[in-house]
């Protein structure tokens, strides 16, 4: 055995990487060679010292998201032949993958990107209602500005103004947007049915979600104005968050420079825009409020059913320098049934288990309202 080979064997011996026979051979040599003995001792010592490094326990954060994804997958597994996972779930898992930290009570903001990266904007505020965002500013009648305007328009084509027609045209090219998911599922099923930690993954119509996610991915790459706006609205992170972020940044630019008529002349600066007119009876109605001078909550959309019961509240603003969107959904009992908070490129879904407390602070300075009543009454969260 030459010297080089022997040196390697001594290292291997220290590493416990030799077969018993080889180990005996090398040990026999080491026993008679002080230099090799010292080498072996020092290597073993280093190995032992490194082995004594403590384990680094993983934080509990994020378990809720993982379990929600797992339950969803498990549910699918019982329905499908083994080996087949629905494509939309893959998308959902990818989206959730960007959820760095699902903190149940207070979300850690420390890692969030600096505020300057995001347009502090109204463009993003209604979140997943791109049609609304697109249609609201230009439509001459104030009642158009509602999350459900697209559906209203579809029901009564004669009422569709040119701007909304354009918006619908744009949507037709990418028929299933992230933003539509909520409007559609809300129409299709009552909110309680969708309650759950996996709100983002439990939309009752998986295929649209898949399409939405794919469409969104395309948006992220294409970043054409219309699409980029939708992307800005849909803050659910794409598999690789970078394109989405770029798209959002692109939107920020667009919103500043290219959106010519951000607010209809007839819209009061801080009023409500009601969408009652033109709605088919029984459809949810949305009311949009904006709070100029209150960066913490620049806008609030309240969606109610025909009886006036609050179904959901969507808020958007900037708190602690971080733009956020918060969606709260209320069940038939008037209790908070689920919530999704997006901020700094992250998304946190809260389901019944997490919502059990007395008070929930989604972000510092932003409480979730545990009842529909409280949601109606709460003053805007203007931040500290």
């Amino acid at each position: 055995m030459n010297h080089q080979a022997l040196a390697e064997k001594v290292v291997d011996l220290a590493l416990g990487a030799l077969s018993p026979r080889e180990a005996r051979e090398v040990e026999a040599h080491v026993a008679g060679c002080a230099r090799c003995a010292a080498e072996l001792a020092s290597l073993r010592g280093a190995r032992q010292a490194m082995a004594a490094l403590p384990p680094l326990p993983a934080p509990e954060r994020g378990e809720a998201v993982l379990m929600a994804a797992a339950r969803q997958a498990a549910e699918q597994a019982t329905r499908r032949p083994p080996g087949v996972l629905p494509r939309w779930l893959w998308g959902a898992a990818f989206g959730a993958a960007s959820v760095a930290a699902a903190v149940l009570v207070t979300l850690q903001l420390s890692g969030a990107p600096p505020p300057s990266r995001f347009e502090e904007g109204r463009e993003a505020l209604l979140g997943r209602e791109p049609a609304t965002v697109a249609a609201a500013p230009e439509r001459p009648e104030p009642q158009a500005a509602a999350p459900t305007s697209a559906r209203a328009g579809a029901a009564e084509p004669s009422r569709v103004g040119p701007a909304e027609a354009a918006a619908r045209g744009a949507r037709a090219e990418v028929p299933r947007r992230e933003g539509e998911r909520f409007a559609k599922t809300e129409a299709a099923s009552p909110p309680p049915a969708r309650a759950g930690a996996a709100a983002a993954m439990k939309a009752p119509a998986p295929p649209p979600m898949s399409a939405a996610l794919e469409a969104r991915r395309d948006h992220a790459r294409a970043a054409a104005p219309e699409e980029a706006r939708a992307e800005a609205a849909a803050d659910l992170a794409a598999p690789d968050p970078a394109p989405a972020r770029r798209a959002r940044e692109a939107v920020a630019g667009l919103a500043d420079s290219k959106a010519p008529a951000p607010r209809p002349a007839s819209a009061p600066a801080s009023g409500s825009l009601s969408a009652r007119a033109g709605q088919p009876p029984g459809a949810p109605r949305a009311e949009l409020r904006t709070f100029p001078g209150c960066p913490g909550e620049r806008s609030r959309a309240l969606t109610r059913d025909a009886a006036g019961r609050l179904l959901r509240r969507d808020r958007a603003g900037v708190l602690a320098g971080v733009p956020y969107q918060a969606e709260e959904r209320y069940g038939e009992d008037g209790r908070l049934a689920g919530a999704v908070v997006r901020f700094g490129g992250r998304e946190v879904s809260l389901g019944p288990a997490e919502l059990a407390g007395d008070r929930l602070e989604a972000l510092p300075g932003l409480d979730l309202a545990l009842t529909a009543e409280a949601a109606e009454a709460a003053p805007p969260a203007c931040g500290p």
Partner: protein
Amino acid sequence: MALDETDEQLMRRFQRGDARAFETLMRRHRTPIHAFLCRFTGDRSRAEDLLQETFLRVVKGAAGWEPRAGVRTWLFTIARNLAADEGRRRVFRDDAPLDAARDGEAPLGDRVADGGRAPDDAAGDALARPRLEAALAALPAEQREVFLLREHAGLSFPEIAEATGANENTVKSRLRYALVALRDRLAAQGLAPDAVPAGRVAP
């Protein structure tokens, strides 16, 4: 209950639609994988993100998992690949080496060169531990990952070869380099537990 079940049994149960099996699996492995990611990336918050993504990939890929692939190896392979890919992107994006932040280490000299100590309290020592971590962090990434997978995660050479995409001989060679480099670095800081400088042990 599930405590005696093997990873593979748990995985099969998860495939059949039992989400609690996944929970057991996750609880069982999240700390070792987290530790690996922390020490491999040198960044706790990134490690946390990558840990999350690792398990989401498990959820996503569960249906396609086959019993012949060991779950543990699979988990570390996912984690390692995510970290390596992210590391590459980071290097490309930031134009900064992956190890840039890791080379900082406590100044030498506040510990005498011959201040050897017993192995057991070397890591427990509040002063020693950061140095042990720093020594690990100073390894080239390909040596560090092999060392961690072998010494901390306890994977076999074939498993490490699978996880890292290197052949077994390369893995063994990297592991040797890693241990020698660690020994040298610790010795240079007077932290070499059993190190006996060659000159002094001559009989």
